[in-house]
């Protein structure tokens, strides 16, 4: 569905670079950013933090009945990924076959197009995740 230009622009740091929040008081990380830590509720102890983009699959599904704007991508794998820093997020899994996907499987961030708003509309970019593939040690 269509979202405004300014809304999309405001979310760029979080969507492009996995910018989140750390509460220094509780030592808990949050994604996306929060102004108030929901655990200690103490304002002023939160700061920006950039996550590594490494994580593992917490749960997943194959979406065969896509929402408006995602018709061309269907079927696609949608997952909740748990980042190594702790927070979880909802994301698509790309460059990975459904048969390969398992709960607990290591994944890493990939920068991708998320959705396109019609022929002349906005193109939104952001994170998706893919299976971590070990390089074969050729040396």
């Amino acid at each position: 569905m269509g979202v405004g230009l300014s809304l999309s622009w405001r979310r760029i740091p979080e969507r492009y670079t996995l910018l989140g929040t750390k509460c220094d008081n509780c030592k808990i990380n949050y994604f996306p950013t929060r102004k108030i830590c929901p655990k200690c509720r103490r304002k002023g102890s939160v700061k920006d933090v950039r996550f590594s983009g490494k994580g593992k699959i917490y749960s997943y599904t194959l979406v065969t009945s896509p929402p408006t704007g995602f018709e061309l991508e269907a079927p696609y794998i949608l997952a909740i990924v748990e980042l190594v820093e702790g927070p979880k997020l909802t994301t698509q899994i790309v460059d990975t076959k459904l048969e390969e996907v398992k709960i607990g499987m290591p994944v890493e961030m990939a920068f991708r197009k998320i959705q396109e708003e019609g022929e002349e509309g906005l193109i939104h970019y952001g994170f998706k995740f893919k299976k971590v593939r070990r390089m074969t040690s050729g040396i």
Partner: protein
Amino acid sequence: MRRVAIVGGGMSRFGELWSRGFRDLIIEAGTKAVEDANLHGDEIDALYSGTMAAGRFVNQEHVAALIADFMGLNPIAATRVEAACASGSVALRQGYMAVASGMHDVVVVGGVEKMTDVSVSDAAIALGGAGDQEWELFMGATFPALYALMAKRHMYEYGTTEEQMAQVAVKNHANAAKNPYAHFQKEITLEDVMKSKIIASPLKIFDCSPITDGAAALILMPLDKAKKHTDSAVEIIASAQASDAIALHSRDSLTELKATKIAAKKAFEMAKLKPKDIDVAEVHDCFTIAELMAIEDLGFFKKGEGGKATQEGKTALNSEISINTSGGLKGCGHPVGATGVKQAVEIMWQLRGAAKGRQVEDPEIGLTHNVGGSGATCCVHIFKRA
């Protein structure tokens, strides 16, 4: 605080009702409730109505005023309540609190959604508003996909099976077939569910509640007044509500709804009862996995054993605990704003002994459980024959 009772209730037929509009549905339900309560319009002090997305579904906001107008209730206070798919039960709770506090004496609580005036894809967009638009829907999530993520994790942690989930649909369609108000009037088999089209694996189309038009309404008044007014009053002995993170991924667990557990705990404390005291319950089965989690989170069965209990028939009509005698959201249909009120109407009928072909044998205590979105709002009410 005053004790509060339901003295009347009614609902429209639930279904794809192309000949009937938003106003027709809620006026029918409201009028039935007022007549059932044996009252006149001028005896009503206030109106609360649950509606999730009238702006998206029928381009109409300001619907509480509209309902008061067309029900001939002006100039009473009329307030719309929105909490996604929990709008109806949260409206009931507002009405309950208004009467309990002494602010109002006789209150009408309505719930309504007219969903089929828009295309299925536009309806999905409207329903998507119940989730986190920026961090779930934007990424390609749909409501079936969010519940599929819960289902997959529940299968992983507890060994729940697709057949166990399917059994919820079979049971609820069987109950719906006995309910003349229900969207679906036909029984289905396990095979029908298992062979139906996959929407978001492991959920199939028969694991999902339908897009439904419908409305329901109730009349509340103080218990002491209700007892003089009628001999079929049903007391609301608990009303509890809790909230959780709007986005599923921000919750600690995917296999329970914390808001359900907290609201249930508060409700059982308020009613001074335990889960085993409940004879009949309407729980939020927007997807089959949701019923399994609900019967666990409400304390009817241990965590992870909801699937097995369902498969063993323990939640069928007149078994260990009768769950979703109306057919639930799955079989009776899910006009989102109406659902929470419809659940209470069904429990009222059950406790009065007026549920005809789907009557639970002599129930004394009933419960309703209504969820908003993927679990960010939950409302639990407990009812007793007055």
